[in-house]
């Protein structure tokens, strides 16, 4: 029914979705949704430098460099938060754009320098190219899934405590900082193995959208994580199948769009939290629109009380 390559890509994207779902659940709960985005962008210059230093396109070398510079980006964010009076959103934007800029400049230089060598096509890492996934890529993702699942199972209780009540976790004497670093490390590894398939710009979506969709269905961490893995895995499979059916459609963006559709469906249909369940009236919706404040400056809620 499918070719070997399609099955390989299916396995890869499924596993990637599962890994991202697990890590992303903690990222969302720790209010660090965009940390993955920063790491992904920050990974680009490391990838290029690894290529320049070792002159090899071996995926392990490239991803090693990517992991190092991604972590450097995360450390820079933490340092700047401590040493300057800039706010976290600005710091994330600064680190993200500076590292990404360095990456773009390096890829362009490499492209111009090795114009005749087709192997040096590093720009594919920006959007990703899942269709050319190799067996080694899938194996790496599989190893990452195993490691992540192992750590999450072993430290489930501690990570749960950290995610919901960091202060209490510290007071109880758990090594909160080390656990935090561990989560950051898992995020970075997941992001980096996802880069060849989904690319620098869209990897963050894999971490954010499936857990956000899962949050509509349940309040339990374990169930959220299972649903997030399911949504992530399903998006991977569906995105790959669609791009295999209509040749030429890029796989990474389709995976993201599938998970967006699942997010919207969850939002509409989920029990208790879903829009349909709560039977929102149009009035409820209107308060989120820009014209909700009436011309004389009285918010509609006050108007309603007066009326």
């Amino acid at each position, binding site marked *: 029914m499918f070719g070997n390559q399609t099955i390989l890509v299916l396995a890869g994207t499924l596993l990637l979705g599962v890994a991202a779902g697990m890590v992303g659940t903690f990222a969302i709960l720790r209010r660090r949704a965009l940390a993955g985005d920063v790491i992904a962008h920050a990974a680009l210059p490391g990838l290029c430098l690894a290529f320049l230093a070792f002159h090899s396109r071996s995926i392990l070398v490239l991803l090693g460099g990517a992991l190092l510079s991604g972590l450097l980006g995360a450390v820079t964010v933490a340092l700047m938060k401590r040493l300057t009076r800039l706010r976290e959103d*600005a710091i994330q934007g600064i680190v993200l754009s500076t590292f990404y800029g360095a990456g773009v400049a390096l890829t362009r230089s490499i492209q111009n320098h090795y114009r005749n060598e087709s192997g040096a096509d590093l720009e594919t890492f920006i959007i990703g190219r899942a269709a050319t996934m190799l067996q080694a890529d899938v194996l790496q993702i599989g190893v990452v899934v195993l490691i992540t699942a192992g750590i999450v199972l072993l430290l489930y209780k501690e990570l749960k405590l950290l995610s919901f009540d960091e202060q209490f976790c510290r007071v109880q004497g758990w090594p909160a900082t080390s656990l935090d670093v561990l989560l950051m490390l898992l995020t970075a590894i997941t992001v980096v193995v996802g880069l060849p398939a989904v690319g620098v710009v869209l990897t963050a*979506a894999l971490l954010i959208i499936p857990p956000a969709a899962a949050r509509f269905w349940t309040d339990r961490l374990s169930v959220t994580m299972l649903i997030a893995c399911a949504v992530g895995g399903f998006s991977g499979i569906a995105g790959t199948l669609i791009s295999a059916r209509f040749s030429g459609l890029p796989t990474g963006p389709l995976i993201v769009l599938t998970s967006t559709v699942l997010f919207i469906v969850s939002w509409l249909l989920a029990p208790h939290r879903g829009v349909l369940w709560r039977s929102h009236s149009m009035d409820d919706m209107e308060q989120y629109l820009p014209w909700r404040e009436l011309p004389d400056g009285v918010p509609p809620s006050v108007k309603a009380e007066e009326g």
Partner: protein
Amino acid sequence: MTVAQVPIPFQSLTSGLAGWLEVPPTDVQNAFWTIAVGALCAICCGLVGCFLVLRRMSLLGDALSHSVLAGIAGVYLVTGNVEPIPMLMGALLAGVATAMLTQFVHKAAALPEDSSIGIVFTSLFAFGVVVVSQAQHVHLDLKCVLFGDLSFAGVNLYPTLGRLWPESFRTLVPALIVTLLFLTLFWKELRLSSFDPTLAMTLGFSTMLMHYLLTTVVAVVTVAAMEVVGLLVVALLIVPPAIARLLTDRLSTMLWLSCAAGVSCTTTGYLLALRWNSSAAGLTAVIAGAELLVAILVSPKDGLLKRMAGTIRLRIRICAEDVLAGLFRRQEHSISPETAAVASSADCYQLAGNGLLAGAALRWLKSRQLLRVEGPTMTLTDKGLLYGRSLVRSHRLWESYLMENFNLPEDHLHVPAEEMEHFIGPELQQQITEELAAPAEDPHGRSIPDINNT
């Protein structure tokens, strides 16, 4: 060749410069116009970016630059061609839609704001990539969106108003006009709602309206600048204002500084890109990061260098004061308290902690005429004696205070007092004296020296 007859502004200037530098005139002309385009870009972004940074909306700038692609793609899907005006309208619409969707997802779905930004812009960008990758149109190029083409911005000259201007001016100049109009018309409201949204609300300004107006202007600027610098427009939107924020506390100064920082980034970035045959937009972002690093170091209010210098000065003072207090104690213990204690310079170094700062501490003392050097020995001057007496008084008062109020064991009193003695001024001495009813002795039974009647 009708195009050749249209005059190019500043042509005599650029060709004059080319003659002086002995390079082809077209090179100088291209560089001149590229730098002009980059500067215009940087000024637009730097002005609106200040408000993004101040209002904690930096990530919205990032999101806008991604979702603009969805607007372009949407217009292409509907109309099937790439006319500039509909493209701009679509991009603008996508920008404003991003801001509204982000707020909507944040509030209606009860998700944290950064998550909702992440969901909205990645989805829109994915949609844009899918459409653009299918488009068989030469003018719809994903690479242009991703990287921009600042290096060629000065090459494409088009006749407008009887002169040849760079093509990007057609979008950048209107964007600058919109930005300046917005700033002058809503200056008061913007300033108030950026610094004190609650007060703005109670005074009857609509912060929500300002939010969406600002978002619209940012979308206009982003769309115009993206042609030139691509996704890295976010570097110009956030980094120069952050540099300016570190250097000043005044909004008007911040705007100027932000523009200046942005222009220097694009100019240096372009020139380095020429030199290294690399991406101008990428190097612009790198230069911006480097400038920010410098700003973090030299920021006049809380720069790292200033903080480090402050710490070192404090530690020198503490070492010096340890010498004074030590010499005073020595004089107390000596047989005749009237003659000043004499110490060898090795002793003084030891009193100063023998550390890296000991020499600096002794120079500090000599320059303030607290310590007199007589051949190989050192003695306290009268001024130094008074200073040391005050320090020892602070020390023993603090020990008494700790004993009285915290009931610490006797051997736990010295260490905290050794730290506190450097920070107790005359007022605090007076206060402790009054509170303890002018004690004559500290808990160890040593007399507390008086500094008033000596």
